[in-house]
């Protein structure tokens, strides 16, 4: 069976510090991978998605970047965090045009 892991679960970072959130998927190959951000009490904002290694589509121009160094690894990064980067970050995977399977999320607080 397939599983998706995200870490860390929670993170508190000062403004201006770097960020690296990691997402890995097990039990499948060549999945589509997604990064979303969710503000408190709101819906999900698609940040990046990837259909293959090194292929990243950015949906929202902002202070974040994503990379896919391996088939089942998706990394969300920032060189300098802003207060507005606080939120709940969710990674997900899918097979093509089908349902997405979500990780447990990372709650990021930027102080």
């Amino acid at each position, binding site marked *: 069976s397939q599983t998706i892991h995200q870490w860390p679960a929670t993170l508190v970072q000062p403004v201006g510090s770097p960020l690296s959130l990691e997402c890995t998927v097990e039990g499948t190959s060549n999945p589509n991978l*997604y990064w979303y951000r969710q503000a408190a009490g709101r*819906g*999900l904002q698609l940040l990046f998605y990837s259909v293959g290694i090194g292929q990243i589509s950015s949906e929202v121009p902002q202070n974040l970047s994503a990379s896919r160094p391996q088939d089942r690894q998706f990394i969300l990064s920032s060189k300098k965090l802003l207060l507005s980067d606080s939120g709940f970050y969710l990674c997900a995977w*899918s097979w093509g*045009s089908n349902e997405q399977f*979500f*990780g447990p999320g990372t709650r990021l607080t930027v102080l």
Partner: protein
Amino acid sequence: SQQGEEDPQALSIQEGENATMNCSYKTSINNLQWYRQNSGRGLVHLILIRSNEREKHSGRLRVTLDTSKKSSSLLITASRAADTASYFCATEPDTGGFKTIFGAGTRLFVKA
């Protein structure tokens, strides 16, 4: 703005009642999906309905899709307190690329 918009934003019902949530979207789609999220957790997929389908059932869930009105509804029958969660619709536009656009969600509270 987000592709999908749910209505109502919040819904409070008694256990045993039916809950209906609606979703409207703006562009042509390949499919529409409904997800559930318990507070502070990841999303769980409920149902996917493709653009050439009009209705789907899964247990106590019934989803309809009207592509002419660009709308969908999720019906939860005989609700339970455990159904308390936020429900999101998500659409995959037919422009290609597999991206999915989520709405702001409906927060459902089922009172025991």
